[in-house]
């Protein structure tokens, strides 16, 4: 079984923000929330690099560990998803996430949080695939249609790649080998540690309930 991953080649990213725009449009992500964003390091000085970042679908996801209602699950492909029917919008996942992936709609004048929203690897959520209800809650489900995440499909320099982690690693290795330099896959150490394959789990896996 493939282990889905993102890989952003920071030697190629030109900070065009097409991935950000494509994501926002594809899933109609509400105003003020971003499932994906491009961050520029050493901006304006020699050595400037840009990295497109979103949920990295970690092995052993911190969001899932701290969730008080146990609403996260990981598919057999390694995609980390959550149930908005279970989420209570407490914000704990946002404190724990190393990548700042969880996003919250503002539901009160004090900035109180609604249900969490994050990158789904274009695989939507736990309700029936490719239905209006699913689109309403989680955005489109491209994976169910046999397509890869739109952000990487849209990337003009093929900097951002999504798909089977082993394939991505091979492509990246070949690139680095050919051009002679590279700075590693951003976020991979944090997200995947020294394991390439995460363990699929469902809500309740840690508690013995279903």
């Amino acid at each position, binding site marked *: 079984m493939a282990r889905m991953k993102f890989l952003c080649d920071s030697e190629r990213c030109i900070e065009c923000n097409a991935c950000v725009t494509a994501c926002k449009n594809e899933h109609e992500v509400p105003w003020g929330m*971003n499932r994906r964003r491009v*961050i520029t390091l050493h901006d304006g000085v020699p050595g400037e690099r840009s990295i497109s970042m979103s949920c990295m679908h970690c092995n052993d996801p911190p969001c899932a560990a701290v969730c008080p209602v*146990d609403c996260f699950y990981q598919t057999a492909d390694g995609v980390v998803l959550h149930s908005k029917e*279970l989420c209570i919008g407490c914000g704990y996942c946002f404190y724990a996430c*190393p*990548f700042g992936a969880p996003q919250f709609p503002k539901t009160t004048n004090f900035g*109180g*949080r609604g249900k969490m929203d994050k990158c789904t690897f274009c695989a939507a959520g736990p309700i029936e695939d490719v239905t209006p209800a699913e689109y309403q809650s989680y955005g489109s489900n491209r994976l169910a249609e046999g397509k890869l995440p739109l952000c990487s499909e849209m990337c003009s320099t093929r900097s951002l790649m999504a798909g089977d982690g082993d394939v991505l690693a091979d492509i990246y290795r070949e690139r680095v080998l050919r051009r002679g*330099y590279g700075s590693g896959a951003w976020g991979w*150490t944090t997200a995947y540690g020294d394991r390439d394959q995460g363990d699929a789990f469902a809500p309740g896996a840690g508690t013995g309930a279903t």
Partner: protein
Amino acid sequence: MRQLRQFLVLAALLTAAPLLAGHLALAQEARAQEVQGVPKVQQLGKDTPSSTDSVGIYREPGPNSPANPDDVLLYQPPTGKVTGRVSIPDEKLSVIVQPEGRLWREFRTVWLRYGIAIAVGGMAVALALFFLIRGTIRIEGGRTGLTVPRFNGFERFAHWTTAVSFIVMALTGLVVTFGRSLLIPLMGHSAHTVLAEASKVLHNFFSVPFVIGLFLIFVLWLRDNIPEKADWIWIKELGGLLSKGGSHPETGRFNAGQKIVFWSVVLGGALLALSGYLLIMPFFITGIGGMQIMHVIHGVLGGLMIAAILAHIYIGTIGMEGAFDAMGKGDVDENWAKEHHLGWYEQVTGRRVPRNHGTRVHPAE
């Protein structure tokens, strides 16, 4: 408004100082790692003989270039916090990696749960053991049937407003902290989410009466809770908690134990309220790091307060005969007043009681 914000920031910083220090140390370590990480990117450019003048922009293969696929660095050595710049109008998204989240995860999933379980469970066990050994502390002279007014209606209103809100927030806080491990196996995910969501709303809502009650308590009882020299004697003898006989330290309206309860509730409650409101309003003042610290303060204090209030409830109800009347009816039995608050009794009634050295002293209610 701006001044208020500045004041709140200052107050938050002061209260968070010890934890902040640890957090800062971590951030510093992270920065140090980051600095180490930066040349790594540029180093490869420097290796290139032809591009030593233009660091890192135009790069060509050099002597350190990987020779086969296995040499390619896929997993970078762990970096610390990495922050850049984003063009979207959401500054908080400029953080690529925040390693502090791992520490907070450890706190939230392990330390906090064990800490509260030990503090609250330990207190419950200690109280149960104490009750088995000591039993209810009786009024030695028996009830006289005559009463002395102790707390008027307004004072009791202030107490119960605070008390009821505290209990609601304690229970709902425990649901959010322990629900996943204790309640989900019992009730299932859907029912638990309903409970947890209600808990979140109730927890936020009851903070308002709690703060109002806390303020009233502070204003009403501050005068009687100023520490005095006599309190030392009471503390040294633990209020006669353990001795069956002994001397009777003079206590005014409140004894040292009650004063400790008062100050823990006032100071602890104020800190709980401050940290809680900063969590209700994300990014109003604190960023993610600040909210992690606020959550740690809130969780630790909450656990300690629940343990302390458990003891307070015990001694005010089954632990001591006649004590509940004070907050229940507002009037206490004359003998209870003489035995527990002799100084106050004389002050209120204007009567002078001959000193009897056989009388016991009693703990806080």
